[in-house]
């Protein structure tokens, strides 16, 4: 019981801290809503695959919330089903790149010396090579038909900017008084790392993760638009890509078909980025003790 109560206490404090920034909290709610719709929605809303030629390019109505596409299919059901692949790939990529960035960024900062020079040298080279063309050129001779592999591929190449940021954060933490004090008290390396450093780095790690998430959505949809990722089915990126290659962006009536997946992606990106403002508060150990 005590554990459960402790958990709810923690959750309550976290949510309370998050409401301190109103825009951030709205971003949080909207991110949750998008996640729920995309991950649970498909179980309740069937994907409309039936061609209804008497029904093409309908504007939004009570029956078709987001209108219909060039084959008279319901766009809303495609949007609901089209999110999970995008979010899954982005999450895999974000986990991998955050892991690399945080792991090697802190290692670089704390080890110093030759290890630091080597890690930063590699990072600088990767940072100089423009990410998106590199991904596109590599995708031209690597087959990316598996979602997990696509996520790992994106994650493996998109850590450099995050690593630099994490390293500079770790460098500044290393010199702070409380770390100095913990060292002077001889509290041991594991205490210093997990009790002093990680809680202070947590904000940074979480924000790195959300930024990596949006970056992965960006590159992923970009690769789909270039036709380099043969992902089939209804996926927000694939929807835009089809609308584009079929020339629907130049067709007046086809507006809803293009606008809805664009809005879905834009709303997801905006929500996640805005949410970071609240996460900044929720994971700040100093604010927690003040509540």
């Amino acid at each position: 019981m005590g554990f459960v109560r402790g958990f709810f206490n923690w959750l309550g404090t976290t949510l309370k801290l998050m409401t301190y920034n109103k825009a951030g909290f709205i971003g949080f709610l909207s991110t949750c809503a998008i996640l729920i719709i995309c991950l649970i929605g498909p179980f309740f809303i069937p994907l409309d695959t039936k061609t209804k030629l008497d029904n093409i390019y309908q504007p939004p109505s009570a029956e078709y919330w987001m209108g219909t596409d060039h084959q008279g299919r319901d766009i809303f059901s495609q949007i609901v089903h089209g999110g999970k692949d995008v979010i899954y790939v982005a999450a895999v990529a974000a986990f991998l790149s955050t892991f690399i960035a945080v792991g090697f960024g802190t290692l670089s900062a704390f080890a110093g010396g030759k290890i630091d020079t080597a890690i930063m040298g590699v990072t600088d080279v990767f940072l100089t090579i423009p990410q998106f063309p590199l991904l596109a050129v590599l995708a031209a001779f690597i087959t990316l038909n598996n979602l997990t592999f696509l996520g790992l591929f994106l994650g493996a190449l998109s850590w450099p900017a995050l690593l630099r940021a994490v390293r500079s954060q770790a460098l500044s933490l290393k010199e702070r008084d409380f770390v100095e004090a913990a060292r002077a008290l001889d509290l041991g390396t594991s205490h210093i790392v997990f009790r002093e450093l990680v809680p202070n780095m947590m904000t940074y790690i979480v924000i790195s993760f959300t930024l990596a998430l949006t970056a992965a959505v960006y590159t992923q949809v970009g690769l789909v638009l270039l036709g380099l990722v043969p992902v089939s089915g209804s996926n927000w990126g694939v929807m835009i890509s089809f609308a584009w290659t079929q020339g629907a962006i130049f067709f007046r009536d086809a507006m809803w078909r293009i606008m809805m997946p664009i809005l879905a992606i834009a709303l997801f990106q905006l929500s996640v980025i805005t949410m970071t403002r609240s996460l900044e508060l929720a994971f700040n150990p100093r604010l927690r003790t003040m509540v």
Partner: protein
Amino acid sequence: MQNYYVRRIARALLMIWIVSTIIFFLIRLLPGNPVEQYIARLIETQGMDYENARSQAAALFAIDLDAPLWQQYADYIWNLLHFNLGVSITSPGTPVSAIIARFLPWTIFSVGIGLTFSFVFGILLGLMMAYRREGFLDHALTVFASVVSSIPNYLIGILLVVWLGVQWKILPIAQMRGTMSPGMTPSFSWAFLSDALFHAFLPISTYVLTTIGTWMLSMKGSTVGTLGEDFVTVARARGLKDWRITTAYVGRNAALPLFTQLTIAIGFVVGGSFLIETIFQYQGIGYVLSSAIAQRDYPVMQGVFLVITVSVIVANTLADFLYGWLDPRIKVG
């Protein structure tokens, strides 16, 4: 003083060398590398025997496949120094360097104008937001900046086509395709310049819209921090004119951290430009890259990718020079 510039240039050259080396090993040694894929395709589609296919591939990539690896590498570097990047597969006989020379200036033109415009106006708007913080203008611009900077740039590009071109019919998007109107020849005349700007209008607007938000928000944050500094209070106490404090004391110092961000932004914008150019059918280097990727024209892909990376390195070095000129302190360190 001199030392700073020399160090920066040496660093840029080192970077260019490392990147070219990486590219060499990617095309030559990776399993399923372009050379092997091209040989396989020739055998498959043209019924060529292995020897012929191999020698044709060697000619295209300007690599002697029978020489030892170090010799191939030395040749590759030697060829690069002479701007010999091989020959295009899809338009036979056209050297890759000629393709680059023809299309690169358009990308430098559009990306350069777009980034400069957005950086300068972003800084001015950010400065204004910081001076009028918590006012209506600040809130409105903050919302605008957060929204535009979170939407992927190619989606903004598509939105511009859909709304300005198709739904509202404000812009003649069909005429705006390409880099200049038919029959126009490059010259230093108003007619040519305005035509070039007319055709580059949509890509430039996209670059400005997608990057200006970041500059506005960073500049605002940085300015608010600078306004509390002692030297600003001292400048006020000395009775300096407000305008002079804003420009020479607050603005100049607040803009400094943004220059480090500029170097990352240049890479990002140049990197993303190839989707933007494809959307607007703007024939710059990015457009060439995306069609080379679509047709698997490996020598062009390799050459263009190298040129894009080198442009980013050059742009970063220029940004570093500008930074060193604005903040003399870093030249010492």
